[in-house]
């Protein structure tokens, strides 16, 4: 019976952390049973069985990073049960796969399998020796290549095409950030510092992806626009709304109002609801607003889809649910995909104002600071007015200053006249 292999669970995934085994050696397995949880670069997902049988052997221990295609377990008729002890102890920070200097680890990744039965990560691959050789020389992961030879064999033609594509991608790297490789294996601190003063903290998949994507976004030419929003009426509106929604058990946060207001403004400014796409600007028909959520493992951005079409109450309910899932690691890939704009709010931490780093390939991200009272003169009287500083980060390839300024002005007006947010 075939080995259970590490599946490809997302486009950008190259390896997955087998975070938890849900079955034990000797368990009877039915097709569709959840064998394990896998933490990918984006989400924690279930590894389901495709075969019926007995779980005979676990080839990797919980916590191991496993390249796509590598076997993780063996299901059979129960005649070849290999006890748990045969599996290697989980080296949670072990350099399990990638050579430290090669972000795109090529197939032979010796350390992931049980010592008694060396895994062959290329097991499912049909390639010519020449294709493998060229792949090795160019650091290609042949699992990412579709073979066009007999029975799907990967041949020289296929790897040559992949290399050509890779070279093209390098020259346009800034515009195609999601295709860039991952580098997730932490270096032991001693190798870089030469001392024991630093402690190497292994990073989660989430942190690794965050690091990579934010690094990529630095290649994007961007600028910042800041606006001071008078939120006196917004706060009052929120209080009214919560009073009337209390019976329904819905509680609207200021952040929900920012999400809704941004969505309305984006609908009115389609040039902002866009992204840079390799020589063209992609204007998106849907307004999907991502909300940055801090979790113990790192930053996650669940997406409120069609936020311009949803009521404030619906947004409030949905955002709360998504944030809860984010904190428990339960977000699905779909719930984190498809954003066209992002809101990052550090107001609750008392930050006055800040600039957020773009979340590629989105063209804009809004950074929201804390509400603070500022003095103002109204009707000849000195009063204090609650204000919030909002800062828009813009991909200059997609938007110019004046267009972005018009968007931010309208957004500010919406926030200052909150009835318009819900009308």
């Amino acid at each position, binding site marked *: 019976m075939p080995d259970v292999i590490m599946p490809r669970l997302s486009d950008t995934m190259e390896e997955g952390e087998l975070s938890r085994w849900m079955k034990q050696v000797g368990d009877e397995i039915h097709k569709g049973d959840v064998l394990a949880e896998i933490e990918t670069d984006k989400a924690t997902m279930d590894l389901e069985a495709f075969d019926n049988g007995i779980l005979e052997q676990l080839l990797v221990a919980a916590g191991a990073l496993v390249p796509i295609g590598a076997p993780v377990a063996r299901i059979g008729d129960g005649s070849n049960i290999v006890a748990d002890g045969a599996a290697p102890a989980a080296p949670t920070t072990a350099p399990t796969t990638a050579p430290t200097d090669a972000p795109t680890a090529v197939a032979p990744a010796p350390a992931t399998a049980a010592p008694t039965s060396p895994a062959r990560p290329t097991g499912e691959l049909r390639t*010519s*020796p*020449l*294709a*493998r*050789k060229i792949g090795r020389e160019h650091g290609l992961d042949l699992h990412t290549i579709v073979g*066009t*030879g*007999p029975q799907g*064999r990967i*041949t*020289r033609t296929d790897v040559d095409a992949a290399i050509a594509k890779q070279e093209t991608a390098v020259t346009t790297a800034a515009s195609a950030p999601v295709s860039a490789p991952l580098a997730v294996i932490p270096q032991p601190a001693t190798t870089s510092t030469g001392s024991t003063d630093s402690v190497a903290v292994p990073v989660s998949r989430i942190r690794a992806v965050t690091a990579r994507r934010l690094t990529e976004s630095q290649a994007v030419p961007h600028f910042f626009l800041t606006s001071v929003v008078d939120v006196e009426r917004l706060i009052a509106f929120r209080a009214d709304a919560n009073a009337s929604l209390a019976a329904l058990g819905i509680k609207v946060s200021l952040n929900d109002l920012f999400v809704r207001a941004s969505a309305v403004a984006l609908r009115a400014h389609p040039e902002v609801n866009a992204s840079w796409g390799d020589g063209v600007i992609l204007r998106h028909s849907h307004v999907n607003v991502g909300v940055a959520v801090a979790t113990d493992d790192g930053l996650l951005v669940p997406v409120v889809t069609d936020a311009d079409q949803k009521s404030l109450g619906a947004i409030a309910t949905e955002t709360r649910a998504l944030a809860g899932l984010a904190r428990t690691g339960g977000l699905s890939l779909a719930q984190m995909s498809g954003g066209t704009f992002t809101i990052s709010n550090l107001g609750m931490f008392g930050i006055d104002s800040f600039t957020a780093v773009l979340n590629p390939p989105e063209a804009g991200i809004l950074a929201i600071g804390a509400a603070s009272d500022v003095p103002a003169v109204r009707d000849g009287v000195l009063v204090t007015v609650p204000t919030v500083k909002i800062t828009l980060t813009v991909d200059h390839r997609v938007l110019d200053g004046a267009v972005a300024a018009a968007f931010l002005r309208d957004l500010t007006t919406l926030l200052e006249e909150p009835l318009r947010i819900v009308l």
Partner: protein
Amino acid sequence: MNTDTDNTEAVTTRTITYRQALNETLRAELEHDEKVFLIGEEIGVFEGSYKITAGLLEDFGPDRVLDAPIAEEGFVGAALGAAMLGMRPVVEIMTINFSLIAIDQIVNHAAKMRSMFAGQVSIPLVIRMPGGGGQQLAATHSQNLEVWYAHIPGLKVVAPSTPADAKALLTAAIRDDDPVIFLENLSLYSAKGEVPDGEQIAEIGKAAVVKTGIDLTIVSYSRGTTTALEVANQLEAEGLSIEVVDLRSLRPLDRDTICASVKKTGHAVVFEDDWLSYGIGAEISATIGEGVFDFLDAPVRRVAAAEVPLPYAKSLERAALPSAADLARVVREVLNLAPATATSNDK
């Protein structure tokens, strides 16, 4: 040509047949070395079943050109004994099929004497014999048994595909101090080609790249090489670049030339007249697998004879022998190309 005033080293050539090249070479070697003599069935008065020895009895007499009885073991053994005593016999066996009667002399004696007698004797013996089918000579007279001899340490086996190589390899074989099986082919005797004048001596054990290309290597020998070239040229017209390696020597085998070619092209097809199983192609395939595995872009394929005793009926004989169309089809398969649409290359 103005040879009177321009007596440079430019080699002049003539276009002659494979048969004529053999005949001229035998004549030249009879003249070159008085220890050379010819022996075989009906090679004197009758001038040989395939007229290779035409005119030689008349010019060199019965001491140099000996008609033998129909007793292959006997006259091969006699030649072997003469070779042990320093003569340079050139035996003609009418076809390779009849060498089976003499195989004990060849395999158990000629091939082993130098080693078993600790180098006290050498066996400068040449056994010429044609192989090949396609002449409606039926199962027992149409075989390609060269691999039997190529298997034997102590023998050398050469298999020229052109008149020029027939000359250069026969000269080399006769001057070699070890027993050489000289494989001819019935269908090559009338083939024409340019042959350089003057003494030409090939290095036994060297293959030749007879056509260069980059997409695929066809490895063949003897008659197969001419078919391979035909197919390569035909496919070249379709934009494929095919390299053809002519083995010339089956033992020793020039593994370096084979591997160098496949290293370049990444694809190989062996075209052989013998049967597929345990044939020449099996050895070539193993050579490629061991030598340039990492450079292979597809499995090595073999095009060989159908594994049946060769039928007599023309239609069945043609179907059983490996053809140009078979070779072209397999080349396309190895290169993962669509089959040719027309059947114009069916011969």
